[in-house]
């Protein structure tokens, strides 16, 4: 390979990674300002002691776990159905959910909920956020699981059925175990997307469902604050680890 191209790539990698590295490094700075004054865990201690942050983190976790569970089950079933026979309408709708700008999806869900609330006695809260997250995670799950299913031999199910298995049994005992790595990767992906979402969440959240990204956003708007660096670093590491596991599963 030519040397200039390799040097260029090093530059692009620096552009992609250095901002996050710098962010992480300064979360260990003992000064509140962006001047290095020595190593300290002060900001991590501060965020550990903050009850509002703990509650937001708990909300985010709760929402992401619930949305991931529902989206993974529905998405896997959906991918299996589409694997058997493609459906133009279905795929088009899933793509629509992928390309709809987040802000548009957020305000349409808000308008929909407001309309619904005229007839039902519920308010914006955890459940409205979870439902919204299921919608935008679904397409990702379907795509990842479908990609895995396409690597499988469809004759395996036929063989199982020739040997006396019913349709559902063939799915449950043959295809499902083989698709498991893909399903696992899809679930991890759905979790990271859900955990990270700000735009849609902030629109459909109620008073009891402030999430971690919503707190980060509010703190970032207020001005420089090393605590945000600390939370951000934790999130990048946590989600980064999940993504690496998901990649492993996808390639297995």
């Amino acid at each position, binding site marked *: *390979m030519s040397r200039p*191209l*390799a040097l*260029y*790539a090093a530059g*692009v990698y620096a552009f*992609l*990674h250095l*901002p*996050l590295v*710098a*962010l992480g490094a300064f979360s260990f700075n003992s000064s509140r300002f*962006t*001047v290095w004054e020595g190593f300290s865990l002060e900001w991590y201690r501060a965020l550990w002691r903050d009850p509002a942050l703990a509650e937001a983190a708990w909300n985010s976790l709760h929402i992401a776990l619930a949305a991931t569970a529902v989206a993974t089950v*529905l*998405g896997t*079933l*959906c991918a*299996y159905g589409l694997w*058997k*026979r493609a459906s133009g309408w*279905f795929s088009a*709708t899933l*793509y*629509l959910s992928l*390309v*709809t*700008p*987040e*802000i*548009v999806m957020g*305000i*349409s*869900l808000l*308008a*929909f909920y407001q*309309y619904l609330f005229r007839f039902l006695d519920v308010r914006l809260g955890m459940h409205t956020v979870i*439902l919204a997250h*299921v919608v935008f995670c*679904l397409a990702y799950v*379907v795509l990842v699981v479908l990609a895995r299913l396409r690597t499988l031999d469809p004759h395996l199910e036929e063989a199982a059925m020739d040997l006396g298995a019913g*349709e559902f049994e063939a*799915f449950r005992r043959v295809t499902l175990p083989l698709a498991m790595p893909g399903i696992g990767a899809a679930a991890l992906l759905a979790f*990271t997307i859900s955990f*990270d979402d700000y*735009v849609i969440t902030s*629109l459909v959240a109620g008073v009891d469902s402030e999430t971690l990204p919503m707190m*980060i*956003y509010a703190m*970032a708007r207020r001005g*420089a604050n090393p605590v*945000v*660096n600390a939370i*951000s670093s934790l*999130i*990048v590491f946590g*989600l*980064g680890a999940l*993504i*690496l596991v998901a990649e492993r599963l996808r390639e297995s």
Partner: protein
Amino acid sequence: MTRLRLLFLAPSAVLLAVLLAAPIAIVAVSSALTRGTYGGLGLPWTIENYARLLDPLYAWILLRSAALAGAATLLCLLVGFPMALFLTRAGRRRNLCLCLVMLPFWTSFLVRTYAWMFLLRDTGLVNTVLQSVGLIRDPLPLLYNDGAVVLGLVYGYLPFMILPIYAALERLDPSLAEASADLGARPWTTVTLVLAPLAWPGILAGCLLVFIPCLGAYLTPDLLGGGKSVMVGNLVQNQFTNARDWPFGSAVSVALLALVMLLLLTLLRRRAEELL
């Protein structure tokens, strides 16, 4: 077989119908209604909300959004094409190199946007470093302008450009580049006259995949542009929250969504869906 398939598809179909199609339909209907006295919706039906899109104030925001998204797309292409070329030639470590491109992309979009606030604000890292080296006395106004927004968009969506181009280049026969070199072409000529035209479907897919989310961006202009750099996404948000003009906000949303779908159709026409 078909019964099980229908049974499996049903829950997702219901979910998408109720929480994706119905909400968008409500917005579409609202866009043709009149704003009520307390910010509510009311009759008569009207197309006035769409007519207002042509008002110079709002048309300017639409054009600005397209221009900023276009600038970000162009920059992604300029930065991403050589990077994709590098990836096809990365040899044994190709998977690692690819992973290093994708990894920041999958970790928190919000955090990555905040990272640029941390770098660019008046008391941010870039200004502090430049001041301590003595290059500048007063901090440079790096944050809260169009440049910061475009930078944030490029940072956010660069992998969307790199991956499809990489996939397209990857499929080419390596002997094509060798033949071109054997016939006396310099590397630059090989890239512009042989590789780029052959990778055209990948380039087009990459451009659309970057342009579409940039056009509807909300978080990036909101955080990195401050109040000054407004894009369509911010206009929608503003109409629904502060201005409480839901009919007009809906009309802007419908227009934005229509534009996005039009672009997507171009992409799918090109049979590039497997690139997603």
